[in-house]
């Protein structure tokens, strides 16, 4: 297996605030990596750097054999291979569910309308929303919107999917439906996934590796079950205590 995402001594600062500090991480194709950690620990920033929504300050970042920083064209190339699902869904509010999903294939993959619509229908069916294709995002529940957003990210057939707290903005009863979709993607397609979440059940069930971040550093990593059972650092013990209470 070759690594599809490679970070070496990556640092990221906003002004004088260092958000990522010497992060080393190598993610293999087909791996499901779950990242946990308290807020402000740099989890989201890490994802955003991988997708070039933020530029790293120093260190080395190689995504799908492309070294970052790179010029615009190469960055678009990376983004085609690395999709992202956001906490706030970020669906295009003026487009129907179907148009949202078909937009990427049409504009980024330059497909015909018919081809793109075909792909979009299939994906909406896959996330269980076939009958909602003509609804606008505002007419869908949070869970449904997030499932459309996942379908949209899948539509450009990326090699990697990044999930930035995909269930944190959802009502409790809708979390399950989104996690189920994510599980089926991991199981069926062997997609490489990097998931920032607080859903420990998901991490244990689906994750190949669990990473605990704190203060811009990777503090612990390993098999999810083992890391959760035997946390070494005080900070992780403390964090797991907080998470379990919810």
């Amino acid at each position, binding site marked *: 297996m070759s690594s599809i995402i490679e970070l070496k001594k990556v640092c990221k600062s906003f002004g004088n605030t260092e958000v990522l500090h010497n992060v080393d991480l190598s993610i293999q194709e087909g791996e499901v990596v779950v990242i946990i950690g308290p807020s402000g620990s740099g989890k989201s920033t890490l994802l955003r750097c991988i997708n070039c929504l933020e530029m790293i300050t120093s260190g080395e970042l190689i995504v799908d054999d492309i070294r970052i920083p790179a010029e615009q064209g190469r960055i678009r190339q990376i983004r085609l291979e690395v999709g992202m699902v956001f906490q706030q869904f970020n669906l*295009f509010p003026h487009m129907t569910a179907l148009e949202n999903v078909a937009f990427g294939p049409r504009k980024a993959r330059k497909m015909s309308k018919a081809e793109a619509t075909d792909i979009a229908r299939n994906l909406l069916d896959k996330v269980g929303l076939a009958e909602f294709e003509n609804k606008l995002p505002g007419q869908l529940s949070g869970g449904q919107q997030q499932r459309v957003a996942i379908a949209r990210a899948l539509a450009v057939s990326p090699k990697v999917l990044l999930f930035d707290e995909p269930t944190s903005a959802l009502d409790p009863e809708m979390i399950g439906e989104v996690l189920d979709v994510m599980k089926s993607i991991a199981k069926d397609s062997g997609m490489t996934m990097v998931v920032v979440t607080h859903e420990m059940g998901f991490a244990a069930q689906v994750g190949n590796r669990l990473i605990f971040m704190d203060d811009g550093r990777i503090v612990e990593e390993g098999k999810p079950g083992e890391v959760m059972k035997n946390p070494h650092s005080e900070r992780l013990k403390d964090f797991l205590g907080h998470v379990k209470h919810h």
Partner: protein
Amino acid sequence: MDFEFSVIVESIPALLAGAKLTWIITVLGISGGMVFGILAGLGRIAGTESLGEKPHGIFMPISSLIRYISSGYVETVRGTPIIVQAMFLYFAFPMLVKAVTDIERFRIEALTAAVITIILNAGAYIAEIVRGSVVSVNKGLLEAGMSLGISRFQLIVHVIGPIAFRRMIPPLGNQFIISLKDTSLFIVIGVGELTRQGQEIMASNFRALEIWLAVAVMYLIMTTVLAMSLRHLERRMKIF
């Protein structure tokens, strides 16, 4: 009080001619104003995150220059009265041209000056409407689009543009109505628009009540048409 309805009836042809001119100046003015407004509005946020990623290399000074030019235009126009702008364009500008160049008989038609004034004036205010609407679009949408590998240009055209445009409609309605009423100021440079026509009829028959009532009603009809067509557009573009 003697109110002669016949006075209004008699003055209608002249007033309609004036109203027609008012309408022409307004339509040409706000059409051109939209072009100027969109350019200057986007110009004021060129190279900022509202339009995607920050530029680098050669594009950095270019986008700063665009921002300065756009801001200079908007602030100059907003900072001076429209009537001064009209007079400057009609009376002062030809003199300026004469002084700077050798062109002796350069002049601007009153109607042309009126249209240009509305274009420049509306353009500056529309620029702020455009800027405000674009800046207010959730940045997450741009990020979502970029994360799909879609180009910034495509996202501005298909995502930012349509969403921002919906938000522009109410303030644009305001500006269109203001521009229409501003055409009445061109009485000072002798454009035969509605107010000027009313003034001339009034000067010959002294029927102030009838004439100004008729003039007011005609403005009201025109502004209502503008307001209603924008409301119609707004309803058609409603999103949930």
